[in-house]
């Protein structure tokens, strides 16, 4: 049963210490900023965070890391020009890093949502990121065994939801949203607009509501909902 929360604070209230939290977004696109800020206020500690990056600037995920709430981060690209908060925590030894090639990160998340126990991929074979991992030659090519990454919780941003949790995203802000929604025990989604059920064209739903547990409407200034009228 879908919960429609009134506020971001309400939406993240049940996240417990030690949770693995999948956080959507690639750069600013699709970053669930208000949900991350609410998680910071909520106070859960010892989190394992899965995100493509390790925070930018001083807000959002960077603030969560800066407050010492993140025990471990699983990501592909932590080091950036404005990742100073992660950099400091990493150098101080207060955060653990699991570095994963971006496509392996995505596929490991997808595998968790799809009930796959792992997969062999050529990406990373013969590199230091494959050290200690099982390998196999398949059709003459080296492959590395990668395991699924499931979350206790996912924090995602989409453009529009209906009242059964179907989601439509916007442009490249889609990025990790659909796979994280499927891979988490509880998916919490912030959307710009919640529309009445029946107004999203079923042909255009990207994430079916079965993967979504909580939605919260947060007006981020993007006015146009993705309703059928819009799409025709």
């Amino acid at each position, binding site marked *: 049963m879908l919960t429609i929360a009134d506020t971001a604070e309400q939406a993240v209230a049940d996240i417990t210490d030690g949770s693995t939290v999948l956080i959507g977004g690639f750069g600013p696109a699709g970053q669930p900023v208000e949900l991350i800020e609410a998680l910071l206020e909520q106070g859960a500690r010892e989190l394992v965070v899965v995100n493509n990056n390790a925070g930018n600037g001083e807000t959002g995920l960077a603030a969560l890391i800066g407050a010492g709430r993140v025990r471990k981060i699983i990501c592909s690209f932590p080091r950036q020009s404005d990742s100073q908060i992660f950099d400091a925590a990493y150098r101080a030894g207060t955060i653990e890093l699991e570095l994963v090639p*971006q496509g392996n990160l995505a596929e490991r998340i997808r595998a968790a949502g799809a009930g796959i126990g792992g997969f062999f991929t050529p990406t990373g074979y013969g590199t230091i990121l494959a050290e200690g991992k099982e390998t196999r030659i398949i059709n003459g090519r080296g492959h590395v065994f990668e395991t699924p990454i499931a979350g206790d919780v996912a924090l995602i941003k989409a453009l529009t939801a209906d009242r059964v949790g179907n989601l439509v995203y916007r442009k490249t802000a889609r990025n*990790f949203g659909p796979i994280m929604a499927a891979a988490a025990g509880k998916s919490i989604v912030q959307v710009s607009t919640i529309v009445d059920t029946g107004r999203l064209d079923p042909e255009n739903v990207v994430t079916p509501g079965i993967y979504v547990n909580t939605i919260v409407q947060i007006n981020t200034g993007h006015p146009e909902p993705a309703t059928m009228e819009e799409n025709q």
Partner: protein
Amino acid sequence: MTTTLSREQLARLVAGDIAPGSFVNLGIGQPTMVSNFLTPAQHVTLHTENGMLGMGPEAVGDQIDPDLINAGKIPVTELPGASYFHHADSFAIMRGGHLDVCVLGAFQVSTTGDLANWHTGAPDAIPAVGGAMDLATGAKDVYVMMSLFTRDGTAKLVPACTYPLTGVGCVTRVYTNEAVFLIDDDGVRVRETFGLTFEELAARMEIPLLRAG
């Protein structure tokens, strides 16, 4: 050619070598310049690994939309026929061999096409890999664009990479300001040189070079 190529000339050369109708991913940095020299008649479709085919030029002014960025997190535009997809699909497009060409920068390339372009291996460096290994692994052809020599004159096309590898045996061509190299089972073949002769080039490199043709 009596002088080495400028960065722009090199980008134009790579663009001209991309077959009409190709699906292409251009890596961050110098490879991105190739898009400036692709012609409409080539009908090349650009992929960006954060989840889009049909990427247009960099966005300016009112076109800038925070939800429409490329893999370098630069605002871009969409062309007619563009499509969006999630990250697992986007990397399936790469890993699955659906892209014709990927153009990447490099620290080093080996004579057998090993690529090192993500990590210098310095003990105090914070590692970040992003999509580099996926890009190196999946495309039908992996072209590298790089300066051929380091500041101290050491060639970056080497017998074996000393930096940590991005991918094994993946690079098929290396475009540099001095020469274009083709890598296949026979070894490294010099397709053309710019501003120096084959012999002059060979004298500055530690690897055996084959002549074109």
